[in-house]
């Protein structure tokens, strides 16, 4: 099935919802790894919105990206509670381990604030990280 036909299916699956744009964008992002201009145009047409409106929404939220990044992604929490537990000292080693192969993405709170530093890979969560375990996590990603 080509992309455009798949998008039609995704739109149809959310037809019953009120205010369906965010659920739609989540599904498009998950399916194609990004929400690009082509997808924006097709969604705008399907929902009777302007392309500018859809682009405005896509560009507002951190979870939606204009281009796909095929690299594995490790999300590292760098919010205050993890800072208090020493995450900043791990960042240089994490960046070195990630290099260009792994996307090291900062997040602001995974809700595990009493056992930081914390990271997330896919839907797997990791707590009580030290330099060794974080570097290992990135190398395995």
């Amino acid at each position, binding site marked *: 099935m080509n992309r455009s036909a798949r998008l039609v299916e995704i739109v149809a699956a959310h037809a019953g*919802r*009120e*205010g*369906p*744009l*965010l*659920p739609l*964008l*989540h599904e498009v992002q998950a399916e194609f790894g990004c929400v690009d201009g082509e997808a924006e145009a097709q969604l705008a047409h399907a*929902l009777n919105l302007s392309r500018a409106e859809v682009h*405005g*929404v896509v560009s*507002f*939220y*951190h*979870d*939606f990206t204009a281009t796909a990044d095929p690299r594995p992604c490790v999300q590292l929490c760098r*919010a*205050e*509670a*993890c*800072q*208090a*537990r020493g995450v900043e000292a791990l960042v240089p080693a994490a960046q070195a381990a990630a290099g260009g192969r792994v996307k090291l993405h900062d*997040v*602001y*709170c*995974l*809700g*595990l*604030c*009493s*056992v*930081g530093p*914390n990271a*997330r890979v896919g*839907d797997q*969560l*990791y*707590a*009580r990280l030290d330099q060794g375990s974080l570097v290992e996590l990135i190398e395995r990603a």
Partner: protein
Amino acid sequence: MTVVRISDDALALACGADAVAAAFVGAGCTVERVSSWGMHWLEPLVELDGKGFGPAVPGDVAAILNGTSAKAIGIIADHPFIARQQRLTFARAGKTRPLDLADYAATGGWAGLYRARSIGAPAIIAEMSQSGLRGRGGAGFPAGIKWQTVASAPGDRKFIVCNADEGDSGTFADRMLMEGDPFQLIEGMAIAAHAVGAGQGYIYVRSEYPHAIAKLNAAITLAAEIIAPFTIEVRVGAGAYVCGEETSLLNSIEGKRGEVRAKPPLPAHQGLFGQPTVINNVLTLAAVPHILSEGGAVLYDSHGFGRSKGTKPIQLAGNIRHGGVFETPFGITLHDLIYDIGGGTASGRPVKAVQVGGPLGAYIHPDRFDLPFDYEAYAGADALIGHGGVVVFDDTADMGKLARFAMEFCAVESCGKCTPCRIGSTRGVELIDRIRGGATAGGAVESLPQMHNAAKTPRSREADIELLEDLCETMKFGSLCALGGFTPYPVLSALRHWPEDFG
């Protein structure tokens, strides 16, 4: 068959609970996956005949089963961390399987909803007002008044929206409640719907909480018949911190940019899709079933301090030895929370500062640790309770860096609708950099030829600090919502109490 109980809360999973559970299954035990007791330093916590063992690793299984484990903590319910609490909202924490309807019903579940249906809408709202429950999201607005406003507002349709966009660092009580006791939240929403005449509810959960989303979706399916004709849908956020602000949250559900709306109109009059909408935090709605149970409102009102009624699930986080959720009546001091209950810092170093209320909360100096946990007392001390997150920092914290982080966070997360927040936060970062860097020359923008009013001579450090204070004043009073309005709290409190950290 030996039955052991291990939490399947996201935090327990992050600490390795699945591997421990698998090891017990391998040893021939039956493993029940329950909610978390909220003693996070002990996770994964294993419960065997009421006794606790933690933090457990797969290698501990044999010793736990034959009674020789050095990780024994005794009867969990008698542990000082639990015994000192007054758990109403978290009454089931650690005790029930989150998605088991029988467990929920056996522990008083749905009693509030059935009673609410029998006493009718006006009586529900009267009991809500009587309980003194105030919004647990941070603003502390009386829930009964909000519900009354929606009930009497004219509208074709009405909505119940649960704000589960728990973005504040140092807070996790919403997540624990949604993962550990999702039916209680659903029951609270169903009661609210009955009180105001709403047919549809939404739970807006942040995308950083995949486990909570899965549990809620499963729980809503299981409870559909019980709450019918009311229906609930989970909506997933998309990484925008500002969507925790109620009006931008509503825009987000509608499929728009998460920009803040000017008030009035209040959401209670024109909220989701322009209709009257109750929007409450997870913990506010989760407190409702208890309040609506027989005698619950009076009991709730009997707890608390001043005008802050009932209990508050406080979240002990950051550099603290015994972190977790501690539900207690209002009025407890930070000193008790951090030293008596939390056991001081995890690093063993002295406490330097505590941030209460998330990224927008003030940094509180140890001199003020006698402050009672109360909306008004905190407001009087230029601080806020917010969602009840308490993040502890030891003496290695650089308060100037944290002040800069607060401004930078505001700049990144600002929705862009109002100028004080959008521009002020960026100028704030530049100013703090200048103060900390010791440079007195104006920035690149100020030296542009068109900046006629900018000072021609370099500013002194004192003048820069005065400018920062002035900027904070503008942000505080000129911003549309709490993001720009409260960012000055961490910045100014850090500047006031730890000026030596600003270079």
